[in-house]
């Protein structure tokens, strides 16, 4: 496939492409970027990440509702003293195109990757070792603590707790989080003890990753190159 298999190149390509796309200002280039990202999805035969796209909808809706009124120009609709401008609508469409393209690129290139593999790739890209370890460890504990949070939440519900908008609910959630924190700190002490017992000094041995294949370089170059070309077209 076109997408690089090497995770380091995927991360780098995603970052560069999204950074380039985020600087577009014309309507045609922005929509073209979104269309290209959609094409990549189709080529890779992945299902569209609807949840991710819908999640942005509220923010974009806000832009579509406000920008036509804050940007002056040819009036399209008038609401009393307010008038929506065509320029404002176009501007909102540009942003929608860029945001959609970025979300699709991220989902395509790094969505659903194993945090452990991502950590290795991030270390390979030169991220500080403690930060990588924090990322990998947190990802691991999110599963453990998420399960504990669900257990406590289920126990609350079993005793008749229903989340409503009142002080009792907020206090109960506060105690839930407090309990999670106390248990987490105990667990962290146990983990630290166990690791020191086994001679852990703060570093894991990590074998260097193999060099990316030529096809990976080509894929990454294709994606970033396309984004760069669109940006050049935009600025011409």
């Amino acid at each position, binding site marked *: 496939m076109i997408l690089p298999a090497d995770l380091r190149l995927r991360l780098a390509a*995603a970052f560069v492409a*999204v950074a380039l796309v985020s600087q577009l200002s014309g309507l045609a280039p922005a929509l073209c970027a979104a269309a290209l990202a959609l094409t990549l999805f189709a080529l890779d035969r992945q299902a569209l990440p609807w949840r991710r796209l819908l999640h942005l909808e*509220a923010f974009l809706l806000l832009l579509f509702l406000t920008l036509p009124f804050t940007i002056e120009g040819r009036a399209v609709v008038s609401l009393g003293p307010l008038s929506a401008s065509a320029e404002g609508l176009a501007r909102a469409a540009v942003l929608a195109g860029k*945001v959609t393209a970025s979300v699709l690129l991220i989902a395509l290139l790094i969505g659903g990757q194993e945090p452990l593999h991502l950590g290795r790739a991030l270390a390979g890209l030169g991220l500080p070792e403690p930060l990588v370890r924090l990322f990998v460890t947190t990802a691991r*504990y*999110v599963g453990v603590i998420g399960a504990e949070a669900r257990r406590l939440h289920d126990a609350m519900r079993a005793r008749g707790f229903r989340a409503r908008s009142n002080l009792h609910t907020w206090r109960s959630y506060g105690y839930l989080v407090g309990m999670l924190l106390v248990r987490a700190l105990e667990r962290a002490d146990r983990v630290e003890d166990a690791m020191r017992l086994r001679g852990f000094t703060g570093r894991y041995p990590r074998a260097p990753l193999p060099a990316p294949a030529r096809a990976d370089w080509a894929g990454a170059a294709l994606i970033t190159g396309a984004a760069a070309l669109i940006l050049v077209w935009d600025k011409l």
Partner: protein
Amino acid sequence: MPRARETEPVHIPDGILSAPVLIGGAALAAAGVTLALRRIDERAIPRVAMLAAVFFAGSLVSVPVGPSSVHLVFSGLMGLMLGLGIFPAVLVGLALQAVMFGFGGLTTLGINTLNIALPGALIGLALGPMIRTAASPARAALLGGVAGAATVIASGLLVALSLWLSSAEYGLVAQVLLVTYLPLALAEGAVSAAVVAFLARVQPEALAPRLAAGPE
């Protein structure tokens, strides 16, 4: 447990902000993270990770406020319990959210980290000593509630500032967004107060950052 579905007003997606704001935010966030990593002993990383994981899991719970519901940020508590460690903890949380759910963004990781972590670190620094030496758990809870609400409001102001600095066109959006922070601040304050009350009674030493090596 319901997953995050509503828009997180704290996270600005890719494609909205201007390059100077993105680069400036990333540089300041990187400075905060570097400073924090120098303070955190390598062996204390499991503890920082564990706390970061609790706040991450906690932020997935949707808390009802009036007719809608919000996802808490816990930045006031993180500032209190992690000190400067809030910078890497927030960065890691945002990165995980981007990878796992696709929320937030890649180029905005820096500015989003800064907008959440900076108010948390500062308010933790300002109110932390008073909370730790409070005469009673109730008083500590009150201060904790103030810290939680104030941190979220400060984050809202920074998000509005990031939008406004990027383009004057976002002025109205920034104001509307700021209004959505009010219910969040209410819930954040109430829940943070309860967490602090709980910890002040059960394990008061948890209210101070412990970034050096060694279990108690």
